[in-house]
């Protein structure tokens, strides 16, 4: 790995939400890097902090209610310490974001063309005519057939898939280096999902941007990601290239996640679920292995006191040592591999 390829480096990032004057870290000591032309997937259950991590990067969280500590280095500048004005020069131009719900992510009272044009006004020196042209070009690029008409339409006149294409057009309008896609396909139906993913890959091939893909859909990850980071309770518990992770998952949580994907080949079986629930933000175990309470059959000695990421093969990092002792619980009372018939 050449350091020149590195676009973004996150170091010891903590993002805390204020609840009654105390800050609780939803993202706890996360370090990650993103390279050029790479799709880095961040996966995890709802509430594991993956979306918070994504929104922390371009500072879209409410400053009055959150606290960001650590480093988010982009072009040798720490985004975490930037003022709102400084961040505005990065947002949309260098780093842009694609959101989960295309139905609510567009201003209902503004024409599509105007919404795409907005970031061009502040980040480029294009004239009004050039901007209009660029808007049509962008709509074309994201696979919209009649750009002239769509540019004059309002969001409610478009389908969900079309709106997500518009949001992607907004995101790529200034040719950003980094695109953060926060569950871009979750709200779409399956055929549209595939089209949107294809579009993302095509755009990346054209621009060479780095993409951070936040998702809980492992199918999507397998399809397009280069590298995967698995998050649990605010921490990264495993990072690996996609083939490595899918063929050789190590952390008990990662293995449980894969195990809980329904298999078409197994008929009449109950779903494999992970015991317990994700602890809420206010009572996260801040010490020891955070997953230990959900794999209670693993002896305490198997866990590290202060679990750190260990590189077990090149590029494959796993937190804690408990993975060496992990096996799926197999007794009848357990929730794993229990057959209905």
């Amino acid at each position, binding site marked *: 790995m050449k350091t020149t390829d590195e676009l973004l480096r996150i170091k010891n990032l903590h993002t805390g939400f204020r609840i009654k004057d105390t800050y609780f870290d939803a993202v706890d000591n996360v370090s990650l890097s993103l390279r050029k032309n790479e799709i880095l997937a961040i996966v995890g259950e709802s509430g594991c902090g993956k979306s918070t991590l994504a929104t922390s990067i*371009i500072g*879209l969280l*409410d400053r*009055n209610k959150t606290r960001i500590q650590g480093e988010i280095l982009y072009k040798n500048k720490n985004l975490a310490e930037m003022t*709102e*004005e400084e*961040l*505005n*020069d*990065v*947002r*949309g*131009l260098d780093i*842009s*974001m694609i*959101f989960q*719900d295309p139905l*609510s*992510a*567009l*201003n*209902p*009272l*503004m024409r599509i063309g105007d*919404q795409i044009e*907005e*970031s061009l*006004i*502040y*980040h480029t020196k294009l004239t009004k005519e050039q901007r209009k042209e660029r808007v049509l070009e962008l709509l074309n690029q994201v696979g919209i057939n009649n750009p002239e008409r769509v540019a004059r339409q*309002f969001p*409610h006149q478009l389908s969900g898939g079309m709106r997500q294409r518009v*949001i992607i057009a*907004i995101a790529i309008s200034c040719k950003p280096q980094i695109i953060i896609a926060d569950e871009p396909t979750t709200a779409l139906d399956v055929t549209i999902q595939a089209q949107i993913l294809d579009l993302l890959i095509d755009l990346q091939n054209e621009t060479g941007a780095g993409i951070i893909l936040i998702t809980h859909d492992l199918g999507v990850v397998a399809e397009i990601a280069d590298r995967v980071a698995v998050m649990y309770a605010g921490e990264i518990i495993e990072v690996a290239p996609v083939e490595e992770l899918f063929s050789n998952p190590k952390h008990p949580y990662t293995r449980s996640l894969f195990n809980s994907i329904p298999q078409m080949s197994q008929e009449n079986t109950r779903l494999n679920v992970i015991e317990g629930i994700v602890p809420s933000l206010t009572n996260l175990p801040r010490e020891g292995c955070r997953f230990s309470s959900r794999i209670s059959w693993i002896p305490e000695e198997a866990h590290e006191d202060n679990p750190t990421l260990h590189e077990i093969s090149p590029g494959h990092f796993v937190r804690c040592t408990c993975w060496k002792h992990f096996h799926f619980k197999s007794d009848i009372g357990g929730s794993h591999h229990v057959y209905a018939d």
Partner: protein
Amino acid sequence: MWKTVVRRVVIMIPQLFVLSLLVFILAQFMPGDPYSGAITPETDPARIEELREKAGLNDPWYEQYVRWVGNLVQGELGKSYTFQRSVGDLIGEKATNTLWLSLLSVILLYSIAIPLGILAGRYNNSKLDKSIVLYSFISYAIPTFVLGLLFLYLFGYTLRWFPTVGSVSVGLDPGTLAWYWDKIYHLILPASTFAVLGTTGVIQYLRSEIIDAKSLDYVRTARSKGIPMRKVYSKHIFRNSLLPIAAFLGFTITGLLGGSIIIETIFGYPGMGQLFINAILSRDYSVITALVMLYGFLALLGSLLSDIIMSIVDPRIRIE
């Protein structure tokens, strides 16, 4: 769109019919009639009876109703018993005064409330926001007559800045600049009373709309584009938050034509509110029924106006 407007106007006809029936029946139930007040020990009861017969008050109610509606349709609102003048002329005269008062009130109300609401929402939880909210609660808690009397006492009697009664000074030629100026001068106190008391709703509504809008997805999208925060506010948050207030304008406009009984009475302003209360006190049926019909019609018109405004400002709503 015009088709819909026409259809809505046509639907108003049966609504107005039901309203007219209700108004007429309720008026019949009212104790006494225009002549009961005229009875003194010296009056000959036969004379009163003669007047009642002549006015058609002894006919069965449906005959009276048909006669009344027939006149109404022809634009003939009847004759006021107290003033012995055509009700149409009477209302027309007062309506102009009320229109001026309402217009100034609305302008004052929105020019106070919209900036305050925007500031409170923009900087919510700040000291500024808290003082605006405090102001709006105080203005909400003060009864109209208390503030009206306070203004009257303070600015009218003590400081003598503004006139305390009427709509225009005597001795000025109508139509001259001095006359118009004097009319506005007379309007300021009642209009500010109305405006100050009416701001609460608009401020609170706008404030909460803006606070809600801040966390909406499309505002986050706008922020992610890297456009300056003031642009996010002006182009995405304020515009969208003002929408419901714009839509409510239809009701506000027509509602104001009804006038305010309390304010017009306190400031001795000859408007619709005053006409209405006097008509009730003197059992002037023809005026009461005409006014209630008018208010009902204005309410219907207000909802139509609101729908039309809404369809103009919100692209999601297109009347097909």
